[in-house]
C-alpha cells in the first residue's frame, strides 16, 4: 500500500510538473481523453463514422509530415502509399481470406516496399523535380490498376471486404487507438536521434553528409516509415469502407493530404493531425450550406495561411506559450520568468 502510494504520488508529481505546466500538453491530454470517452456521451453512428474517417486521415497526414515536413522530401504523390496499403489489404482479405488484423499491417509493409521502390530513383532528385516525380507514381499505379482489371477490379475496385470489426463502436476504438498510438510513435521518431537527422537533412543535406552520416539511408528510412504509416491508414480505410478503388490513388487525394499538413503546420506531427480533426469534420458540417461548402472551405484555408503562414497549430502554440531565450524550455505565455532557469521571458 505504501509503495502504491509512493508511485501514485510520483505520478502526480510528474503529471503536475510535466503536463499541467504547459497548455499545449493539457490540450493534447484533453484531446486523448475526449476521444477515449466520447462514446460514453454519444454513440451516434454518423458522428462515430466521421471520427473514424478523421482518425484514418490523421494517420495519413502525419505520415506525410514525417517524410516531407521533417526530411524535406516533398512528396506530391502520397496517395500511392495509401492506395498500395488499401489495395494490398483488400486483395489479401478477399483472396487469401486474411482478416483485417493481418491484412492491414501487411498493407503497411507493402507500402514500405513501395516507399523503397520510389525512394531509390527519387534520391537523386530534389525540390520541384522530386515533387513532380512523386506526383507521377500514383498515376502510374492507377494505370496498372486499370491494366489488370481481373486482379484489381479495374474502375470498380475491390469490394465486399471484411469489416474492421462487428460494430461501429469497436471500429471507432480500433481506429482511434491506432491513430493515437501511431501518432505518438511518429512524434517519438521525430524527437529521437533519427528525427534530428531528418531535420538536419531538410536544412542542409551536404552538411549532414560532411558529418559522416549516410543521408541516402536516412532518406530511404523516411520513405519507408512514411509509407508504412500511410499504408496502415490505407488498409484501415479499405476495411472500413469495404472497398479499395482507383479513387484511393487520385491526385486530389495526394493534394488533400498536403493541404491538411500545411494548414496544421509542417514538421510538427501534431499540426497535420489537428488540421484533419478541424478540416474534415468542418467540411461535413458545411453540408448545411452545400452551395457555399467548397468556397467557405477554401476561404478558411486561405485566410488561415495568410495570417498564420507556419500553420494554425504552431501559431496557437506560440500564442499560449513562450520559449525561453536561454534554455529553450517552453513556458506558459503568462509567465514572466522561465520555469526552469528563471531567465526573463520576452
Amino acid at each position, binding site marked *: 500500500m505504501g509503495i502504491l502510494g509512493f508511485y501514485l504520488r510520483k505520478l502526480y508529481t510528474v503529471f503536475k510538473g510535466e503536463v499541467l505546466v504547459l497548455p499545449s500538453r493539457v490540450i493534447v491530454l484533453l484531446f486523448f481523453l475526449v476521444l477515449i470517452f466520447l462514446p460514453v456521451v454519444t454513440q*451516434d*453512428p*454518423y458522428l462515430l*463514422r*466521421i471520427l473514424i*474517417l478523421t482518425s484514418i486521415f490523421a494517420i495519413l497526414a502525419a505520415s506525410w509530415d514525417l517524410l516531407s515536413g521533417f526530411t524535406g522530401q516533398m512528396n506530391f504523390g502520397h496517395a500511392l502509399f495509401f492506395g498500395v496499403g488499401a489495395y494490398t489489404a483488400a486483395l489479401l482479405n478477399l483472396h487469401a481470406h486474411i482478416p483485417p488484423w493481418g491484412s492491414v499491417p501487411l498493407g503497411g509493409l507493402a507500402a514500405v516496399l513501395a516507399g523503397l521502390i520510389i525512394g531509390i530513383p527519387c534520391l537523386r532528385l530534389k525540390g520541384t523535380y522530386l515533387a513532380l516525380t512523386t506526383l507521377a507514381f500514383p498515376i502510374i499505379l492507377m494505370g496498372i490498376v*486499370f491494366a489488370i482489371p481481373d486482379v484489381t477490379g*479495374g*474502375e*470498380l*475496385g475491390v*469490394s*465486399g471486404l471484411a469489416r474492421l470489426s462487428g460494430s461501429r463502436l469497436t471500429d471507432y476504438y480500433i481506429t482511434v487507438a491506432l491513430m493515437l498510438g501511431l501518432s505518438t510513435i511518429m512524434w517519438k521518431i521525430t524527437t529521437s536521434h533519427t528525427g534530428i537527422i531528418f531535420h538536419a537533412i531538410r536544412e542542409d543535406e551536404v552538411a549532414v553528409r560532411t558529418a559522416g552520416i549516410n543521408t541516402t539511408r536516412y532518406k530511404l528510412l523516411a520513405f519507408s516509415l512514411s509509407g508504412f504509416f500511410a499504408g496502415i491508414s490505407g488498409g484501415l480505410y479499405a476495411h472500413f*469502407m*469495404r*472497398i479499395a*478503388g*482507383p*479513387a484511393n490513388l487520385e491526385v*486530389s487525394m495526394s493534394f488533400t493530404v498536403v493541404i491538411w499538413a500545411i494548414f496544421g503546420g509542417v514538421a510538427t506531427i501534431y499540426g497535420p493531425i489537428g488540421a484533419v480533426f478541424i478540416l474534415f469534420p468542418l467540411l*461535413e458540417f458545411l*453540408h448545411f450550406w*452545400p452551395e457555399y461548402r467548397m468556397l467557405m472551405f477554401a476561404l478558411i484555408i486561405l485566410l488561415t495561411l495568410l495570417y498564420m503562414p507556419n500553420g494554425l497549430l504552431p501559431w496557437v502554440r506560440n500564442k499560449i506559450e513562450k520559449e525561453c531565450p536561454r534554455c529553450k524550455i517552453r513556458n506558459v505565455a503568462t509567465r514572466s520568468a522561465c520555469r526552469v532557469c528563471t531567465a526573463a521571458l520576452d
Partner: protein
Amino acid sequence: MKRSRFVLSVLVMAGLVLTVGFPAWAADVIKVGVIGPMHFMQGKGHWDGATLAAEEINAKGGLQVGKKKMKLELVKADSNEFLSITDATSAMERLMTKDKVHFVVGGFRTEAVFAMQDIAMDYKKIFLGCGAAHPELCTRVGKDYERYKYWFRVTPMNSIYLVRVCLVNLATVNGMLKKELGIEKAKVAIVAEKAVWIDPMIKAIEENVPKMGMELVGVWRPSATATDVTAELTAVQRADAQIIFTIFSASVGITFARQAGELEIPAAFTGINVEAQKDGFWAATQGKGDYAVSMSTFVRGVSYNEFTEPFIEKYISRFGELPTYTAVTYDAIKSTLGEAIEETGTLDAEKLIPVIAKAERIGVAAAKSKFDKNHDLVFGPGFATGMTLQWQEGKMRAWWPNGWEGVTYKGMVPYKIPPWMIKKYKK
C-alpha cells in the same frame, strides 16, 4: 417585466418540448433521400425527377398508406461522388442516421454506389439505383439475397444490355448501308474518347464487328475535352470508313459532330454521344451536328407509352431542359415505390420488397418495367429498351427501335444517311 419574461420562458419551453419531444409530427410524412452529385447534371437530373414525382403525389394529398394519407418529403444529399467516395458514403450515412429517411433513390458512379449500397443494406433501407449501370451491383443481390435484397436498379439498363443495343444499332446501320448503297462489307471505325469506362466497350465492339460481317479499320482515341479532331477525322476518311462508331460522354462529342459536319465526312454514325442527348447540341455544333447519333432515354415527341410525353413536356416547362436518364428517379418514386406502398399499405421494407420485385409497372422511361431475380431492370421488347436518337435537320429524332423485335414507339422516324455519303457511294 417579470411577467413578460415568464411568458417568454414558457413559450420557449413549450416550443422546445413540442419540436424536440414530439417527433411523431414527422411520422405523417414519407422521407425519401435523393442522393447524387448535385453540382453536376447527373445529380440535377436525380433531384428534378424526384421533385416532379413528389409534387405530383403531394398534389393528390400524398400516398395512401393503410388508412391514412402520407405526404412525401424529399431530402437532398450531395454525394460529391465524382470527387470523393468518402463524401458519398458520409452523405448516405447522414441520410440513414440524421435524416432518418425511409427510402433512398439515386447514385451514379459505380465505385461510389458500391460503397453507398453497403451502407443502405446495413440499415435495411430500400435503395433504388438511378444511375450506375454496372451488372455487379445486381449480381450482389443474387449472391447474397438476404443482405442485398433492398437494392433495385430502376435505371439505366445494365452495361451488358447497353453494349447489346450498341451492336444492334450497328447491325441496323450496316443493313441500311447494304440496302440503300449496296455496301456489302462495311468498314467500321471506332472513335472513342480516352476514358477508362469505355475500354471494355471497345473490346466488345472489336470482337463483334468481324463476326457481324464488317471490317474494322481502326480505333481512334481523342481526348475527352479535345477542341480539334480533324486529324482523327482525316485518318478515318483515309481509312475509307463507312460507319463511325462513336463513344463520347464529354465535350469532344460536340467537337467531333461539328467538324464531321464541316468536313462532310462520307460515313454513317452510330454509338453514344452524350452531348447529342441535350437540347443545346444543335447550337453548340453551330448547326453542323446533323446525323450525329446517340443512345438515349428520352427524346422530345417520342413516347414509350401514354405517360412519357406529358412527363417530358412537364419536365421541360418546369426545368427548361430535356430530362436525362437520371431523372428517372421520377419513376422510382412515383411508380416503383409509390404504387408498392399504396398496394401494401405499409412502409415496411420487408413487406414492400416482394411486391416491388414481382410487379410490372408502367412508368415514363419504358413501355413497362419490371425486375429480374437479381432486382435488375429487365431489358427487351415490351420492357426497357431505351431509344437511339439522330439529329436530323436541326431536330432530335428517334430512329431505334423502329421495328426491332416488333418494337416501335410513337413518334419515331427512319435513320438518315448523310447526303454526302449517298453522293459518294450511290451507284
